[in-house]
């Protein structure tokens, strides 16, 4: 097991290397550069800027320089926000993005799993239909549509929550709508998965054995069914948490949450090379690490699984 974990951790390095090479190459292949803005700069100015930031070097040289800086923890300058470094930009927003993602993650687990369990226990009865209906809405509503509808209903019509003004725990009200909007799809996914898994478990021999020896319904459900049914659910939690942390940029834009997500799209349009690389590496690393954590966790909760 230890050997497996070490091999997996070491494997993350080449993955990140290839991701960075591909992104770096594509980014520099893309027509245009960081200086192409509304007001036209003189060719001499552009040349001077390129030399100042080392953009006139061959791309492989630029890549090596970037890697060299990355190892020392320097993500380089931002070409768009000249007064800030990429480290500043990432440092300012990452906490908020992770905060939002983790809250949505817990909300989706706390709502999704019970929904799935109830659906399976009352299979093809009214509670099942209600649970299925909720998950159907979650799957069929793109996050930007859900956000807009939530905003109109709860902020504009009912005035329960503010439309923007995220400020962490200092202003809990402003956290509600972004979290719910972000959690909607994961809730649906978790509850569908849990329901299918619970239905599968219901047919197992050990459940029938537990029933025939007269165990209480609650004991069977909690000890025998839910514990086993949740094992496959854990496998989707890793990609899901990665999705929540990396996929929140639309929500962040709509609710004006000061995370890093909004730089995601803008940086590519502006060819802000340093920010593009930082975002890609950050997201790729979190996807790789979270998947590893889940795989290890999976072996831990299901002793039948052995990695070699």
């Amino acid at each position, binding site marked *: 097991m230890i050997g497996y974990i070490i091999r997996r951790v070491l494997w993350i390095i080449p993955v990140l290397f290839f991701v960075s090479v591909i992104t770096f190459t594509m*980014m520099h*292949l893309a027509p245009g550069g960081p200086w192409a803005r509304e007001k036209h700069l003189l060719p001499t100015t552009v040349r001077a800027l390129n030399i100042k930031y080392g953009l006139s070097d061959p791309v492989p040289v630029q890549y090596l320089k970037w890697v060299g800086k990355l190892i020392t923890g320097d993500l380089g300058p931002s070409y768009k926000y000249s007064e800030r470094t990429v480290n500043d930009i990432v440092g300012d927003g990452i906490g908020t993005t992770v905060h939002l993602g983790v809250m949505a993650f817990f909300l989706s687990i706390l709502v999704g799993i019970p929904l799935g369990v109830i659906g399976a226990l009352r299979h093809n009865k009214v509670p099942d239909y209600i649970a299925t209906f909720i998950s159907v809405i979650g799957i069929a509503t*793109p996050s930007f549509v859900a956000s807009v*509808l939530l905003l109109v209903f709860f902020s504009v019509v009912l005035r329960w929550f503010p439309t923007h003004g995220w400020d962490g725990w200092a202003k809990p009200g402003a956290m509600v709508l972004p979290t719910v909007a972000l959690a909607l799809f994961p809730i649906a996914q978790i509850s569908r998965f849990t329901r299918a898994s619970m239905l599968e478990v219901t047919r197992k021999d050990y459940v029938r054995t537990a029933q025939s020896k007269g165990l209480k319904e609650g004991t069977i459900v909690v000890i025998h069914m839910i514990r086993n049914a949740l094992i496959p659910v854990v496998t989707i939690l890793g990609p899901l948490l990665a999705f929540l942390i990396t996929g929140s940029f*639309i929500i962040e834009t709509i609710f004006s949450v000061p995370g890093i997500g909004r730089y995601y*799209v803008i940086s590519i349009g502006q060819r802000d090379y340093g920010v593009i690389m930082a975002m890609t590496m950050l997201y*790729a690393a979190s*996807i790789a690490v979270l998947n590893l954590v889940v795989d290890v966790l999976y072996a831990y909760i299901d002793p039948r699984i052995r990695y070699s």
Partner: protein
Amino acid sequence: MANRTGALERPAAAKEYSSSLWGDAFRRLIRNRLAIVGGVIVLGLLFLLIFGPLVAPYPYQQQHLKELVANHNKPLGPFTGGFLLGTDDLGRDLLSRMMDGAQISMTVALVVQAVVLLIGLPIGAAAAWYGGKTDAILMRFTDVIYAFPDLLFIILLTVTFRDTFIGSAMDGVLLVFVAIGIVSWVGMARLVRGQLLSLKETEFVEAARAIGVTDFKIITRHLLPNALGPMIVAVTLGIPGAILAEATLAYLGIGAQPPKASWGKLVVDGQQYLRSEPHLVIFPALIIALALLSFTFLGDGLRDALDPKLKGKQ
């Protein structure tokens, strides 16, 4: 076989066991009402893909300025003046625009899944069949692709290849579709590999090898047809994700350019009139939801129908 009386007591079950996999699956599928509803809507959307512009009440880009001015330059509501779903702020018939948008969303569905099969199938098949080093290299390659943040990579791809021949095909939307496909094939490759790994050990494959059938022929004639069921399910269930990705990109302003509009773009455009004219957001949002659900229900139904584990249980 040993228990003949059991078979006699349940003639229906016995009959099912004698029928073919596909006939069986089809019968199970048409018993699943949700899957049928999903399938009918999918057929309707495919019909719009081919005949959309012919059945639309107006050309999608036609501005009905006279009606718009008569309405004080505000978008017309539903059921007014011959516009079933009303018009947008430029006086264009919303229903016609949605029918036209169906072309984009359905093309996404087809192109993305074609790319997914084109890349995922050979990689998964080769990894499973050759095993060893080939398997290791190909699977590590899928790991790398999997680590890319999807939307970031799609946006980067569309920006990088905008000026190439594929970037200009179909007004630039083809590139968006291919980019979505390029980040989506990993699941298919893993599925094909998993399926083929177990099929590889079967006796009929061994027999085929023994009489000297070529690798390519064994894979295409013996292995893939047996893995077809799960692949069809994966393709169907992958379509909602592709439609959703396209809608999200359209929301970010990437993809079809005005006056053409995909469903996602219609939602963005309608957003500014949300309080006074909510129909401009609600109808496009509903059609997105309907399309996503139809493919999901059809895919779920296909999975239940094709899953041999469930055979005889319903």
